[in-house]
């Protein structure tokens, strides 16, 4: 086999320009694919991280039916104190749950005493919230545009930056928040703007925040009543087993009609970005298919040319007794070498470019977020799989020319000029 490999290698060097051109095509293809996977993957990872770590958490528990009417933030679908306690007990018993945060979401009116605007609000327990969505504090600008300290004391309000601009509100200004409670009566509380929250893509991306105690006061709620429990897990990889486990435990809690009280969703079900993530996965698949097509066509073309140009040589080696299997192996090996060389060089170049992009700090904007820093990375397994696909396709592309070469009748091949 080493002899066949040596002859195959020399045959490739014989047509060095053609070999280089074909290899370049394979190299460009593999570089394009690996860079796409790295950049698109890092964008996906970044966005998922932003969404889960600054807004949604990995999982959310609501009262059954809440998510279907989430746009009007209904207060009549709040979880009562006993139900919250049940969920808390289940969550504390799951080792994959790192933290959770209880939220009371509602809609209200915000007034700067001269203008009034609608606002969606999250009443939060700051300590629990910052543990569950640790990137939230990075979105909040405090005094002089600096990031606010991760506190949200009673009497303070964080407002979305779009609303701050519209109502010309600045840190330290007083506003009045008005909301309708479950009984239909309207109440208002004066609050101090202590933070401006940067906008984010997706649900909750333009919400304001206040201390849950202020929310209880405004809505005249007594006891620990919430309508959302955001959950942070030890890793995104455990989302599926944890949700199955939680569903199993929480489905045991039924209402008077014997129907489940709770519903539990992953971040993917709650954020439209999950569709973009799916599109990225689909695009990655298409890019891989294009790579396969490039490798298949270019290597098959070059190997067919090699067979046609070397018919008499094939006749000679067949005449002196080389078996059809060895002739087949010779041409397969040539195709494999082309693919192998392209895959190795392409992978090395790709890894170099990825390092360079990380060193140069690639920034991009998405929606209202304009300083996202991409850190393209690629798993070695992904590089190996892509390289193996290229090598496998190279072998496949060489198969037909190799079979053609091995099936040539020596007497006819020797007559060829």
């Amino acid at each position, binding site marked *: 086999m080493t002899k066949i490999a040596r002859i195959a290698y020399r045959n490739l060097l014989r047509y060095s320009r053609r070999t280089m051109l074909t290899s370049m095509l394979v190299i460009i293809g593999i570089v394009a694919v690996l860079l796409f996977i790295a950049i698109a993957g890092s964008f996906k990872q970044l966005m998922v991280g932003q969404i889960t770590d600054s807004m949604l958490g990995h999982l959310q528990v609501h009262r059954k039916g809440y998510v279907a009417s989430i746009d009007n933030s209904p207060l009549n679908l709040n979880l009562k104190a006993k139900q919250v306690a049940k969920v808390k007990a289940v969550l504390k018993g799951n080792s994959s749950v790192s933290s959770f945060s209880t939220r009371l979401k509602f809609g209200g009116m915000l007034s700067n005493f001269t203008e009034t605007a609608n606002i969606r609000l999250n009443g939060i327990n700051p300590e629990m919230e910052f543990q569950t969505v640790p990137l939230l504090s990075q979105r909040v600008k405090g005094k002089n545009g600096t990031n606010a300290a991760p506190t949200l004391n009673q009497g303070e309000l964080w407002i979305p930056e779009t609303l701050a601009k519209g109502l010309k509100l600045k840190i330290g200004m007083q506003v009045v928040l008005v909301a309708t409670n479950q009984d239909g009566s309207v109440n208002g509380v004066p609050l101090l703007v202590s933070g401006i929250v940067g906008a984010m893509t997706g649900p909750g991306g333009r919400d304001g925040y206040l201390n849950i105690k202020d929310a209880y006061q405004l809505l005249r709620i007594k006891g620990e009543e919430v309508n959302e429990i955001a959950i942070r897990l030890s890793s995104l990889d455990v989302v599926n087993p944890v949700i199955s486990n939680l569903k199993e435990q929480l489905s045991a809690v039924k209402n008077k009609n014997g129907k489940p009280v709770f519903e539990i969703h992953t971040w993917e079900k709650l954020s439209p970005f999950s569709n973009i993530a799916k599109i990225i996965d689909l695009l990655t698949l298409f890019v891989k298919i294009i790579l396969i097509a490039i490798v298949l066509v270019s290597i098959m073309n070059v190997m067919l040319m090699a067979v046609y140009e070397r018919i008499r040589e094939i006749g000679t080696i067949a005449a002196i007794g080389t*078996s059809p299997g060895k002739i087949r192996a010779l041409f397969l090996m040539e195709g494999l070498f082309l693919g192998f060389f392209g895959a190795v060089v392409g992978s090395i170049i790709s890894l170099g470019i990825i390092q360079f992009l990380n060193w140069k700090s690639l920034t991009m904007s998405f929606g209202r977020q304009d300083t996202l820093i991409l850190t393209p990375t690629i798993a070695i397994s992904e590089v190996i799989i892509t390289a193996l696909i290229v090598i496998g396709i190279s072998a496949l592309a060489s198969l037909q020319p190799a079979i053609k070469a091995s099936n040539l009748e020596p*007497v006819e091949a*020797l007559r060829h000029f």
Partner: protein
Amino acid sequence: MSLVEINNLSKTYQMGEVTISALKDVSLEIEEGTFVSVVGPSGSGKSTLLNLIGVLDQPSSGSIKVANQEVGRLNNKERANFRGDNLGFVFQNFNLIPVLTVYENVEYPLLMVKNEDSGSQREHINGLLDAVGVLEQQSKRPSQISGGQMQRVAVARALVTRPKLVIADEPTANLDHDTAYKIINLMKEMKEKWNTTFIFSTHDPKIIGEAEIIFTLEDGMIKNREDRRIQ
């Protein structure tokens, strides 16, 4: 003892709707260790006969035995194995493998056909290269040596597996007269040294004269068999 036994051998080709008879009912015997020439005008069937004896082609009818084996109905793989085990070839255009050196071209049948270890055969290969006069060229590629030297390398390659029979179809057609004469003499020397049977075709009357047995073909039939050993 007969190395080649041919009985009522015919070969026809289909060219569109026309059937061409390249060989018609040919019967002959070739003894082991003889130096045989097949002569005749173009289209007389020389190459067809050599291709059939060389197990490169299959007959339309009749039987052909080489080294006591009926070779007319072997499949592709069996034919390849038979050629590798029993035959050597010298071609008109030398047909050396351009990417291999002179040494590697001679070594090729041992490694790729006989699956023999190259190290153990180094002495044998060098001996052959020396015998055909190209030992000093062993590191050169075919493109770096002359036509005569290429044909010498081809003779060495044909003999390296110690075949019973070497087929040479017009081995001197692309060489000048002096070189052609040297190549035929070289083949004759090799025949004496290794007791290998050589069958070659040629047009050159002077070279024909070097053969021990001459078969003259005309219109696909044996017109004459001349045994010059008797004279």
